[in-house]
């Protein structure tokens, strides 16, 4: 099942290319430009070559922040992906309950990120926060401003609360794209519920899962506002992740040159890791865009099935 070559398809891509290039390439060029200069004043630029890059790479604190970041992103993926998949499977496929679930699911995503941090602040405070107060009353010592472990867990739980709906929504959409006939065939074949998940649902969610994993990885790797508002990076630097660290160093000193250099390095780290992740997932799943259409949020539906088939009351999924 290979795709035909058609160079005219570029025409369909041109609008996207223009929009994104306008937004991306020009600014990017500026960033690259600044990263190799020392901008002493708006009119005085001195070319310094790789000086900023070398300074960053040799920075020990960077390694600490990078390490914390990697652990954080790993935890995020570890929790949010299975949770999101489980949620998507648990949600009803239609009816008012589905609508209600979708709305509840959407709510945490819609709150501006600084407000998310603020809410969790006032939620987690041991003196006046619902969570903090309740935990301490129950005998658990909990103070996210004092204890690094508590801070970490709070930031993690906050992220899970905030972002699992994204994974769940993607997986849910992917599940709804599976035609009924697959479930019917599995019923006829006598498949167990787990077999249906393993052989039908999971393979057909490969596409959305890949998107979810990469998205969550990228976004968690760049996370800034929520932990910054919640813990300010503390206690100490225990919850100072990469973007906050770099922002501190660069913006704090309000120096455009190093800032640009940091941005580039940051970008390259994410690029590299995503590239690896992407290729690994593509090989494992044999899914992936711009390749022969294999399974992805997979349907093989006929042109006549313009509306979903109603098989009456046969399936409550």
């Amino acid at each position, binding site marked *: 099942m290979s795709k035909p*070559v058609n160079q005219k398809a570029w025409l369909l891509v041109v609008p*996207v290319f223009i929009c994104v290039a306008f937004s991306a390439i020009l600014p990017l060029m500026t960033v690259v430009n600044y990263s190799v200069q020392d901008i002493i004043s708006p009119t005085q630029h001195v070319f310094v070559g790789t000086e900023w890059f070398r300074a960053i790479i040799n920075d020990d604190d960077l390694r600490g922040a990078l390490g914390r970041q990697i652990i954080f992103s790993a935890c995020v993926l570890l929790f949010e992906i299975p949770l999101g998949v489980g949620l998507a499977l648990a949600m009803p496929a239609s009816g008012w309950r589905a609508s209600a679930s979708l709305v509840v699911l*959407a709510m945490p995503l819609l709150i501006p990120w600084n407000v998310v941090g603020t809410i969790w602040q006032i939620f987690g405070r041991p003196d006046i926060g*619902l969570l903090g107060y309740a935990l301490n009353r129950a005998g658990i010592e909990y103070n996210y401003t004092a204890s690094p472990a508590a801070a970490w867990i709070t930031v993690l739980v906050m992220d899970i609360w905030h972002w699992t709906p994204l994974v769940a929504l993607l997986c849910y959409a992917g599940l709804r794209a599976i035609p009924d006939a697959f479930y019917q065939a599995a019923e006829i074949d006598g498949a167990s519920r787990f077999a249906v998940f393993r052989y039908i649902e999971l393979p057909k969610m490969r*596409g959305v899962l890949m998107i979810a994993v990469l998205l969550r990885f990228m976004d968690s790797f760049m996370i800034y506002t929520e932990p910054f508002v919640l813990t300010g990076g503390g206690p100490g630097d225990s919850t100072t992740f990469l973007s906050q660290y770099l922002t501190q160093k660069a913006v704090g000193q309000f120096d455009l040159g190093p800032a640009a250099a940091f941005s580039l390095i940051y970008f390259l780290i994410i690029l590299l890791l995503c590239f690896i992740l992407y290729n690994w997932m593509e090989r494992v799943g044999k899914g992936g865009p711009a390749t022969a259409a294999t399974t992805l949020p997979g349907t093989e539906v006929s042109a006549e099935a313009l509306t979903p088939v109603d098989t009456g009351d046969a399936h409550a999924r």
Partner: protein
Amino acid sequence: MRDNRWMRVVVLTVYILFALIPLYWMLSISLRTNEETMSAFAIWPHQVTFDNYKVIFTDPSWYWGYLNSIIYVLMNTVMSVLVALPAAYAFSRYRFLGDKHMFFWLLTNRMTPPAVFLLPFFQLYSSVGLMDTYIAVALAHMLFNVPLAVWILEGFMSGVPREIDETAYIDGYTFPAFFVKIFLPLIKSGVGVTAFFCFMFSWVELLLARTLTTVNAKPIAAVMTRTVSAAGMDWGVLSAAGVLTIVPGALVIYFVRNYIAKGFAMGRV
């Protein structure tokens, strides 16, 4: 498939509680005065007050903030999805020079925090005279929304086998008719979820929106950063604003619910 119904109910209930409790707390704080909030812990507000909401509804910069956000976010959503649909179709159905690279390049636009683009965007949009306009923010947000839209749509489109396209052409459909009447309905859950995500990511994006606007198009999120004053954090107003920011997005997902979920299934015999 019926015997695990209790498990699904348990999972859903637990999750809904988990999701709603912090939201309840936010609502609760929004209904208290700051003094009450800061003084001692209480599950319910002692005295329910709507003052925080009054502040928002009576202060023009507050409600204009909402309106501004809604306008440019809707603009962005529509533009992003429209531009992404043909591109996703091209990536899904054809091979062409540089397609794999182009696709990955699109993703890379999401791999940098928008903060990186702050200064260059500022310079760019100032120079073309688009500062403080809705279109500026809508365009700027396309930076990260268009790649996402293309990515998600491509995935769903690739799940529809090409035999459908071919059968439609044999049956005499023109490409536009095929795309609108046959293809789009088959990927409607993908379209629904894409539209919602574009809305959501644009709605919460604060940095770029704040940088590119001064007065006329100032978004709600930017207005909310004014809640920190010499007297300390205005928890009440901030929470109220937080509650209110949920409303437009909740409406959006309610409207696209039938695209995402199965909706009413009609019999096809």
